[in-house]
Structure formats: C-alpha cells, structure tokens
C-alpha cells in the first residue's frame, strides 16, 4: 500500500464514491419540454445533471444516475416543469 505525503489526495478522486444509490427518488427529464436552459445544471449540488447535445442536435438535460442522490433540486427549479421525480422500484411497497 502507498500513502501520500501528509495525506495529499488526487483531484476528483471522489468519483469512486458512487452516490447514485443514496436516494429513494430519481429525476426523469421530459426531453420535449426541456429547453436546455441549464438551470438544473447550475443548481445540482452533485454536478450530476448536464445539458448535452443529442444525436438530433437537440440539447437536453441528462441526469447521471451513478451519482444522483435524488434530492429533487433540479425538479424544484425547472422553469418549464420538464423534470419529475419518480420513486425507485425497490422503495415501492405493495400493500396486500
């Protein structure tokens, strides 16, 4: 094992910590409604929703589920209501 001088860490080494399984919900982007305004991108606490250009040249916000903690900030700030939060399947309780 190697340890660094005084505990120096490499940049962005937190990427090994996949936080995508933290939340109970996840955001779903309605690509039709999304105007690629980047509000969600600027306000995501976890830097995991980014506006990207799709194959058809349309720009839309795409969440990164590997890291998304399901906080709902993007949902709450979307000016055109293009994001909705859905419950992860494992948290759906079936009442018998």
């Amino acid at each position, binding site marked *: 094992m190697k*340890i660094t*001088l005084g*505990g*120096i860490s*490499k940049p962005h080494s937190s990427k090994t910590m996949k936080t995508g399984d933290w939340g109970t919900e996840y955001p779903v982007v309605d690509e039709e409604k999304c105007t690629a305004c980047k509000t969600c991108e600027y306000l995501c606490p976890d830097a995991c929703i980014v506006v990207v250009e799709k194959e058809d040249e349309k720009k839309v916000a795409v969440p990164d589920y590997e890291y998304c903690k399901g906080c709902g900030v993007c949902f709450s700030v979307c000016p055109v209501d293009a994001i909705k939060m859905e419950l992860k399947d494992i948290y759906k309780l079936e009442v018998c």
Partner: protein
Amino acid sequence: MEKVVRGFYSIAHSVKLCKPNVIAAYPITPQTEIVENLAEMYANGELGDCEYVTAESEFGAASILVGASAAGARTFTATCSQGLILMSEVLINAAGMRLPIVLVNTNRALSAPLSIWNDHQDSMVLRDGGLMQIHVETNQEAHDMVPVAFKVAEDHKVMLPFMINMDGYKLTHAYEPIDLLEQEMVDTFLPPYNPPVYMTTKDPLTFGSYAPPQYYAEFRVALQNAMERARKVLEKAYKEWAEITGRDWGGHIVAEGVEDADLVAISMGSLTGMVRDVISELRNQGKKVGLLKIRTFRPFPAKEVRGALKDAEKILVFERAVSFGHGGPVGMEVKSACFGLTPEFYSFAVGLGGRDVPREEIVRIISDVYYGKVDQGFHFGTVKPFEEVIV
C-alpha cells in the same frame, strides 16, 4: 566577518542569507527584535523575493506559513512562550501535513503567573507535536543552525517543521562577537527550496485531506518514520556544516569527559556553559565528573545518550522546565534512554521564569549529588521556603 551583534541579529542575518520567500510573525518578548530586524531588511529591499508580514497573532502567523509552505515557499517565523503555545495547533497540523516551516523559539516561561523571562516550559509543550527541536548554547551556534534547520526540514526524506530553541534574554539580548556568514557559504550548503509537491493549478491536488480510521494510523507512522530518518539527515547536516565553516558544534549530543566519569551532568541550552565551567573545575580537582550537552531534543538521541551514560554511576539533569505531576521533562527522556542501566538518578529544575542560576547553585547541586547528600529523583533548585495561603 566577525561583528559584535545581539542574539536577535545573529538569527535575522542568517535567515536573510537562507533566502526565505515568506516570513510571517507577531511580536512577543523576547523574540520581537528578530522580526524587527527582518522587517527592517524587508523595508530596505534586502530580502530579495520575500514577502514579510506582521500577522494578527502568532496563530495567524503560523497559519500564513502553512498556506505559503503548501504553495511552495520557503517559510520562517520566530516566537516564544504564549505565542508558541498559541501557534501550537497550527504547528502540530503543519507537522502532520509535512510542511517544512522553520521557526526560532526564544525560550520563555509560561503564564501564570505571567513571566517574560527564560526557561524551557514553552518548547516542552510542543514535545509531542512532530516538530524537530534543537537547543543552542551560544549565539554563534544559533546563527549557524538556521541554514541547518532549513536544509534538514526541506530534505525530501524528512519534510517536517524545525524549531531552533535559543534561550530568551540569556542569548537573545546578549551582545557577542559573531562570525557572520557570507552569502556564498550559505549558498554552498543550502540549495534553493525544491518542494517535492506544492499547490499549483497545473496539478490540482488536495492538501490536508482528513483520514478515516482505515488510514489515520499509517499517516502517524509515516510521521514517526520521517522523524527517524531525520536523525541521520540532521547528523549529516551538522557534519557538513562543520566541514564548510570549520565550526563543529557536535552531533545530537556533546559528551565531555564522560568516559571515566562517575557523575555525568546533563544540560541543554545556554546554561550549559556554566555547568561546563563547574565540571571542568571539579575535574581539575581530580573529581570524576563529566558533561553531556543535549543538542537535538526531537528526534531524541536516545542511543547516543545511553552510550554516553553507560558507565555513569550518577546522572544529574539540570532541568529548565517541569512536567507538573511528574518531574523534569529532560530527565524523563534520559531515564527512558537509560532503561535497564542502574545509575543513581537526579534531576533539578533550575532558573524557572528567569530566576538567576548563580554558579554557586550549580556547584552546590553537583557536590550534593556527588557526595550523596540528596535523595534520588526530582528536585527544585533554590526556592524560598513558603506556605501557600488563599489570600
């Protein structure tokens, strides 16, 4: 070039020749004149590529040096006493972060009661902090040890803060003829600082990470290992310095006449001169006494100390501090170094808070021990008999 200067200047001049990049300090007696001298040099443009600032506290000064050192600068400060213990959180942090900050501590007593005068209680508080510590006997030695401190602290095998202890007043305020170093000589000995790693946007590393239990212990072992490596690096630097300047201050310890001595007296710092004087007079009288001066206090030269004391029947430590609830801190180190040996052991705390230590006191303590007139263990030197009352 020999010149009569005060202890303060002997440090400041040497610091200048070491070409520091950042000096941050805060005034405190009896250190102030060191940084005043440096401030004057800065004001006159004599410090080259160096920034000098007076911080808002010693805590701030040390913290400024943490940032500067991490960014790749050669750094210096001076302090003592309350200032040193105010810095202690930062200095201990700097040791863990492996930042080679160099500081001079002009040893002074701790409050309360407030005392501006000399003893070693301040530096003893930092004993376990991960700083290298040496004690000097004279202003010439103080002058000479500044480049040594930078060289050893910045050695890539070490990378630890270095504290030079010099006795406040006894040395700082004393005028002595000092053979002032020349730039060329210092340049030969001390290369420019070449940090093994530093903060830069070219390689945006994270300094000062916190370590969860699965890592923390390894970092502390690494710090201990660095201290262990520092023994050799420091010893080598002492030797190299002696070769370059012709002034040999010795290694981690200086043992004088210990080979045939029944009694060995131990001292650190400026008191050593007087102890040496008494010891040498007693030897002239045919008494088997010797002197052990401890120069390096951290890493503690246990092997060397044990070697020097292996044949001693009586060990006597002149302490300049007290570990309240136990005894003298140097004595404790010496005892642990001598574990398994069976000499009689005596330890006397003298000169606390600048109390004058007359030659007669040293003579009396040594002869009391020599002739078996005192019990073994820890004692205070001359104190007036008193009774503690509430008011």
